[in-house]
């Protein structure tokens, strides 16, 4: 006789048992994780730990996007790579590690840097996006593409001894809908002066600092994916977001500072901006402007070669 079909495979009950038994996840949460497609943009200091814990948790499809190759100077913090894989593309290197941790995940490699032309088409293949990149140019582009494709965005950053984390477009709603969470442009309508922008290469970075932020991105992604809200099967609008009130949702910024007391601080930020260029009714950013390449993010953010000032 054919046995009753279980919603998960036998090995999945074993592998995910420690999270399955928790009411916050449970069988329903595990099935949501299994059906989820998550895109990680940037497989560096943030992307490596985020990918490890999302693969570990059993996210069904994990997309990895990065055009860079592994360098020796990455290895103090980019824990999914290895010395033997120096010079290999980062998505390939990380996939070797992730496959050995959890071979039951579908890994998609996008072996290039994100461009406005490709963003919409790629983001549409996923349910949730993690911004693990390292420049304002990509942060604005990723946020815009998340608004246009209706994806929640878990964004983190780190430099020297500090880190920041924010969940944007949560819940995800179309431009003009005040019940959607704010986007990156709502919080930062204008880019910082180019000379104030420091990369980890220039400013330095302590490995566990960016590591903590990346692990917390995985946790926020799991929270969003396993939340009780009902999400339509084919990626349309969210009918309910689990919030009990119909007030415009605000974002929360988590700030980490290694040598501060206290080390962590949570601050309440704003809701959607009524005149936001991306997520308001007056939005000027469209699928067409992205896909055609008419939006120049590099020009918007100013000079591309950051000057070592701040």
């Amino acid at each position, binding site marked *: 006789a054919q046995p009753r079909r279980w919603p998960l495979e036998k090995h999945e009950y074993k592998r995910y048992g420690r999270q399955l038994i928790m009411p916050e996840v449970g069988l329903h949460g595990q099935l949501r994780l299994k059906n989820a497609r998550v895109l990680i943009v*940037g497989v*560096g*200091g*943030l*992307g490596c730990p985020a990918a490890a814990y999302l693969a570990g948790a059993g996210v069904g499809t994990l997309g990895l996007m990065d055009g860079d190759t592994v360098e020796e100077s990455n290895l103090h913090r980019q824990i999914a790579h290895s010395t033997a894989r120096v010079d290999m593309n980062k998505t390939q290197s990380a996939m070797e590690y992730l496959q050995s941790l959890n071979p039951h995940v579908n890994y998609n490699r996008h072996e290039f840097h994100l461009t406005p032309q490709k963003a919409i088409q790629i983001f549409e293949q996923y349910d949730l996006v993690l*911004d*693990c*990149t*390292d*420049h*304002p140019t990509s*942060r604005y582009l990723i946020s815009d593409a998340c608004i246009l494709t209706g994806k929640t965005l878990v964004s*983190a*950053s*780190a*430099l*020297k001894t*500090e*880190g*920041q984390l924010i969940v944007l477009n949560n819940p995800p709603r179309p431009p003009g809908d005040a019940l959607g969470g704010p986007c990156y442009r709502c*919080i*930062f*309508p*204008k*880019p*910082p*002066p180019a*000379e*104030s*922008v*420091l*990369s*980890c290469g220039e*400013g330095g*970075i302590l490995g566990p600092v*960016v590591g903590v932020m990346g692990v917390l991105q995985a946790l926020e992604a799991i929270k969003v994916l396993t939340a009780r809200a009902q999400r339509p099967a084919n990626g349309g609008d969210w009918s309910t977001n689990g919030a009990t009130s119909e007030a415009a949702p*605000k974002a929360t*910024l988590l*700030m980490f*500072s290694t040598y*501060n007391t206290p080390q962590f*601080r*949570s*601050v*309440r*930020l*704003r809701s959607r901006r009524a005149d936001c260029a991306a997520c308001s009714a007056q939005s000027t950013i469209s699928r067409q402007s992205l896909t055609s390449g008419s939006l120049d993010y590099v020009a918007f953010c100013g000079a591309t070669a950051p000057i070592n*000032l*701040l």
Partner: protein
Amino acid sequence: MAARKSSQSHSGGLELLFSNQRKHKVSIPSTSDATTGQPSNVAFLIKWLCDNLMRDPRKEMFVLDDTARPGILVLINDADWELEGEEKYELQAGDEVVFVSTLHGG
């Protein structure tokens, strides 16, 4: 003229502009204009910090068009100043104002 005590702190590299010190307890005048008796607001605090506390000559790394430059979040008592009236928020004794520079690294 009474002083209004307010502490302010920096994060995200901004402390480098302020003698590399993260937290400052400052007393500012309780009115920004003695004739009108206009209570001191955050706009006044920003100008005051530039004039009195900032040791770095690169003012443009902190202010632009008389307000905090793009990429700096201003938090009043752990909330975005946009929730509190932005520059027009009138400072109370003991208020904590935090200036956070956004990070972009990863």
